[in-house]
């Protein structure tokens, strides 16, 4: 089993404050995840604010160095790679981000944005070839060359910009796509189109996708599996549909039941208990990170952190109730 991209027990600790009183925040703790050469599916990396999902994304993309652990591309640590291997890694691992406006340089037109990867990754042999390629990928995402190539980012709509970003991914044809909240800044009635493009991208190019979000309803449409993070650790992971229908971890249970369903006959039952969640992060907690909010906790939860354990076929939970 060749791992194309692997996060091996990565931990990231940030330090806040100045010289005298430094506070340490563990954003991600001991996270492991791998995508093999032959898996071609969409995995959702889900988590709310403070879960560490953005930090993990930045580490997988090589923008942030883990405090502990390694990020491996084809078995090699990306921070110790040679230039040529790093190029290959860059070509194989791409991303689309939440805010297409932020991600585009206001002084460059869209044709520059598409030409750059063509030049750097040598995707075309000639200018004519490149123009043809750009035209084709723009068509795949529902745009036309005349519509966008000669324009600046501020002249396009949010939906057009995001599609242009996806066209860029179509161009590069990476093996792995990290999609970080790709639809959260798009109008509600236009999100489905973007999701369709991502699914098309994934199926046509035998690509694996990591969909990073806090909005499970959108991710559910196109994902096969899900990993749920809480304060830097995985709480539960496995087949998405199974987990939605029958969640095991208390946090996941609360989360799934609190998601809005657009059906007035399927409303929330009972009430939730609001807590000061924010304080929990800065306290050094021994034991399970969720225990101070958990309604099903048992004494051992406060003392020892439950390890992520396999509880069935393609199902893992980190909870003492299931050990």
């Amino acid at each position, binding site marked *: 089993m060749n791992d194309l991209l692997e996060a091996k027990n990565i931990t990231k600790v940030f330090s806040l404050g100045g010289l005298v009183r430094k506070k340490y925040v563990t954003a991600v703790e001991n996270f492991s995840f791998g995508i093999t050469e032959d898996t071609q599916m969409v995995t959702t990396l889900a988590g*709310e*604010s403070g879960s560490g999902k953005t930090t993990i994304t930045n580490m997988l993309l090589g923008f942030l160095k883990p405090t502990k652990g390694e990020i491996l591309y084809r078995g090699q640590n990306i921070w110790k790679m040679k230039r040529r291997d790093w190029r290959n890694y860059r070509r194989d691992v791409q991303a689309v981000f939440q805010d297409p406006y932020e991600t585009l340089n206001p002084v460059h037109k869209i044709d520059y944005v598409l030409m750059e990867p063509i030049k750097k990754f040598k995707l075309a042999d000639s200018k004519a070839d490149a123009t043809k390629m750009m035209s084709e990928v723009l068509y795949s995402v529902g745009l036309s060359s005349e519509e966008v190539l000669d324009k600046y980012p501020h002249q396009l*709509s949010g*939906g057009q910009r995001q599609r242009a970003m996806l066209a860029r991914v179509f161009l590069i044809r990476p093996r792995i796509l990290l999609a970080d909240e790709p639809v959260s800044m798009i*109008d*509600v*009635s*236009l*999100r*489905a*189109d973007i*999701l*369709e493009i991502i*699914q098309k991208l994934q199926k046509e190019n035998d690509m694996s996708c990591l969909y990073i979000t*806090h909005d*499970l*309803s*959108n991710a*559910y*449409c*196109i994902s096969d599996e899900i990993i749920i993070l809480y304060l830097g650790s995985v709480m539960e992971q496995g087949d998405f*549909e199974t987990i*939605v229908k029958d969640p095991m971890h208390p946090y996941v249970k*609360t*989360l*799934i039941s*609190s*998601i*809005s*369903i*657009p*059906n*007035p*006959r*399927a*409303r*929330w039952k009972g*009430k*939730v*208990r*609001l*807590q*000061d*969640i*924010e304080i929990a992060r800065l306290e050094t907690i021994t034991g399970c990170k969720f225990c101070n909010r958990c309604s099903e906790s048992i004494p051992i939860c406060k003392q020892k952190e439950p390890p992520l354990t396999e509880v069935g076929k393609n199902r893992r939970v980190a909870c003492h109730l299931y050990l």
Partner: protein
Amino acid sequence: MKLVTQDLGNAEVGSDVLLEVKNLKVYYRTSTTPVRAVDDVSFELKQKEVLGLAGESGCGKSTLAMGLLKLVEAPAYIAGGKVIFRGKDLMSMSDEQLRKIRWRHIAFSPQSSMNALNPVTRIYDQFTDAMSAHRYKVPERKPRKYVSGLLKAIALSPRIHREYASELSGGMRQRVIISMGMSLNPELIIADEPTSSLDVVVQRGVLELLTGLRDERRTSILLVSHDIATLFEVVDRLAIIYAGKLMEIQSVFDIYDEPLHPYTKGLIDSVPSLEKKEIPRSIPGLPPDLKNPPTGCRFHPRCAKAMEICRQKEPESKDLGHEKCVACHLYS
């Protein structure tokens, strides 16, 4: 007060009309033609009701929410219409009279709670400032106890009293804003995207809190949001806004079973759900430019059921009885 016969099967909703909006227009001045952000919108809000105002970004719903209390700032201006509350038209009131109504009778929770809280005043003082400005008689004349109670209701510890707004997280600030809105026990709370930046579980808690107010204190809530799924979870009636116009308003059950307006149907169909593992369908086309909206019905360029008349004439809002109102030529 006008009594509206109701036939909903939802025993919770009251029958007295609390707020009546008539032909409200809010425009934005530009160097050329004004932008018609809210164009001739009429609806009623009843006592003890949670009314949802749904629409996508740029449709005018936030402008409408602020317009109800004349909170719009230049270049926006009220171009016409009436907003009748307790028999008086808010649009024709002086600033001084409106100030007495705001907060005390109608509270407004703006979209970005970050900006609504004073950064240099402690939380406790902000509560007492609002209360003393309206000469609110605190129960038992114990303001500290009262504020603690309010904070506990949104599950924030009374320790928050002494903190400044910048020391709280986004979710906590949002809750404080809502709590302040509740503090003077208003008849109506207008909440503009109260949960947009909150985590899923906190969002549920805040919305349950608001609907709890409706149950316990008979407060009406006007909930403005682009999150259709969340609106379906909590509202009694749902109004759909598109390009500054009210397209449809019905009880939430009726609108789910039988959406009348094609835009409503398209909007509901475009929302993903954990009940179905499939990609929903987008509405083709793009939202219109409000400086230069399409002729006739503003939705017709994107409407699968558009007819010739839709391009020529703007449909009028038609009351179909049973609390159903729709602006569409399919029903004229």
